[in-house]
């Protein structure tokens, strides 16, 4: 909805940068991206990842609750950390593939690393686009 609102606000073709944790459904985002691209916008997605989201917090045995959706998952961090880390990699690869197919540049931004580096990389790639 936010992306559609942004598309309506920009009358001319322009550059839209989406900064998000991308904790949302892929098809919806993909559809919105394709719409923006169809309107002639250049779109860049900066995927914000916290280290705790990337590696799981050191919480031992705990009930992990998403405060937005109230989704709760019990887990032992030691037991699932490896699988979780693999899943995160899979998710990033999925985003990269889906957004790439839609002509959207995609960059992962870790909150524990300088923000400028991935940003410059994203826009450097942008310069190379036709």
């Amino acid at each position, binding site marked *: 909805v936010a992306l559609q609102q942004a598309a309506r606000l920009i009358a001319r073709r322009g550059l839209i940068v989406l900064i998000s944790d991308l*904790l949302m459904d892929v098809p919806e985002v993909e559809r919105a991206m394709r719409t923006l691209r169809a309107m002639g916008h250049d779109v860049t997605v900066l995927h914000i990842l916290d280290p705790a*989201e990337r590696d799981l917090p050191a919480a031992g045995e705990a009930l992990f609750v*998403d405060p937005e959706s109230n*989704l709760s998952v019990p*887990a032992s961090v030691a*037991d*699932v950390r490896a699988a979780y880390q693999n899943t995160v990699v899979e*998710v990033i690869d999925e985003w990269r593939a889906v957004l790439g197919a839609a002509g959207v540049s995609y960059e992962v931004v870790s909150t524990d690393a300088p923000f400028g580096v991935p940003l410059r990389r994203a826009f450097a790639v942008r310069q190379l686009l036709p």
Partner: protein
Amino acid sequence: VSFLAPLYLALGAAIAVPLLIHLMRRRIGVRVDFPAARYLLRAEKEHSRTLRIKNLLLMFLRVLAILAIAFAAARPLAEWVGAGHAPTAVAIVVDNSLSSSVVVNGHPLLAEFKSMMRDVLSSATSADRVWIVTIDGNVRGGSVALLRDEIDRMEAESGAGDPSLALSRAAAVVRASGLAARQIALVTDGQRTEWQRVPPLADAQVVLHVPSGPVAVNRAVTLAEARPSRWTPRGEVAARLQSTDSTTYRITLNGRTFARGTAAPNEEVTVHASPPERGWLAGTVELEPDELAADNSRPFAVWIGPAPGVSVSPGAGPFLKNAIDVLRSSSRVVDGHDIAVVSADEVTALPALIVAPGDPIHLGAANRALERLSIPWRFGARRSGEATAHGAELDGVNSTARYDLVAQTSAVADTLATVGQDAWIVAGGRYVIVASPISPDATNLPVRASFVPWLGSVLTERLVGEPGQVLSAEPGKRLPRPRWADGIETVDGQRTSIGDALDVPQRTGTYFLTLNGRRVGALVVAPPPGESVLDRYSARDLAPRLQVSRILVAPDASAWASLSFRAAARRSLIEPALIAALLLLLSETLVIRRRVALPQTA
């Protein structure tokens, strides 16, 4: 596998902890806000099978680690794979006490023990060292052939033996063997009265066997005693019979039956007698034989002689004279000169009951008379003041005037009664000395009811006949040498001299003690009454009473024979168990840290 501390196996219950963790992990109370929960859910869904296997693997590793630790804590022992046993020092302690002669299933229990010992010997190799220790503490070593001969010759003891001595000697010989594998193999009937007190043996390892099965009902003579020990010539025989029902008994004296009767269970019977025999004699109280025949007869000894002739000197005083008259009227003594009852200043011959002179002026004459008769006592300073006497069944008697009794260097005597810390009545070989005159001015003894019985006992038990007495002892014990005897006469009439101590013979019976070839006393050898009580400890009950470093209970005879060598050669499994626990915990750590094999993403 056996365990030295099997109670620690209960630690294995701690496996409930990882099991509960595994089962309860879906009921976690800690809540973490985590926006990326959807990734977590996806990870669990995608890798649920792998995670489940991993969790199960972790649970099993943890359970096995706990079991390995509990196993190690229980101090397991097991034989290593392989044949034979390491060179072992084995001391076979056999309880051949009197109770082992009980007949079970038609054979003496000792015969079963001997068979078991032969089985142990058949397992011995030339590298082993073996000893046999009987319950009296005797140790026999040597070749297997010699030990077999020892077993063939072995008989049940006449007494309880000394289990503590036997065990400590067994521990000492295996310790001194120099071999690393040491074992005590103990076979016993587990008799409760025998295994009451066993001192700890910290470094002993014991393989124990106690036969199971019902205990024979035993009848026994637990007391046989001549009262008094000298009859002049009348007396009585007291006997106590252990039985669950009425039983007939027979009393013999000098081989002749002089009384028969029936006694109620555990009744003490008393039979009065005035036999014609004279001198030191042996007697028995007997029952019909039962499964334990060794305690169906119990010996006693008695001296029998005519009533002694007693003379009373005027200086002894009227109270003694009147008391002698009473004894004479009851025929316990007669007129005569066998024993003199005299004031010390009048004594000229022994045996004599000597009383202090009534007038201190005669004290010098009294001491000279004592010196002439080589009596090693003298009258000393006169003491006044009321004091209570103790001993010689005279408790409660007072003395208000007395002389110190001063022992000479050679004085060897019994103190029969004391006043305060001082000797008041002393006795030697053929004399009794009272330190007070027998008059109410000096003591209330002559007006006490106990006076005449005491006087009768002194005259007819202590001063009559030879200066000996009846000693009682258990077989195999050692007594101080009695100063009134120099030899011992065996049951079959053989005489041997007594050394520095009197070694009590092993066989039950009456042995006469002699002085210069004449019978002067008797030694009655009989088992302790407790040996007739056949109640047993089970092996499980007896094992903790043996305070040894390690004990294994052999459930049957063959296991006992087998374990006698193999137990000592067995190895501890503590180290392997702890290593296994460590490896399991390391594996658990690796499984936790290891990334599970997941499909690689592009």
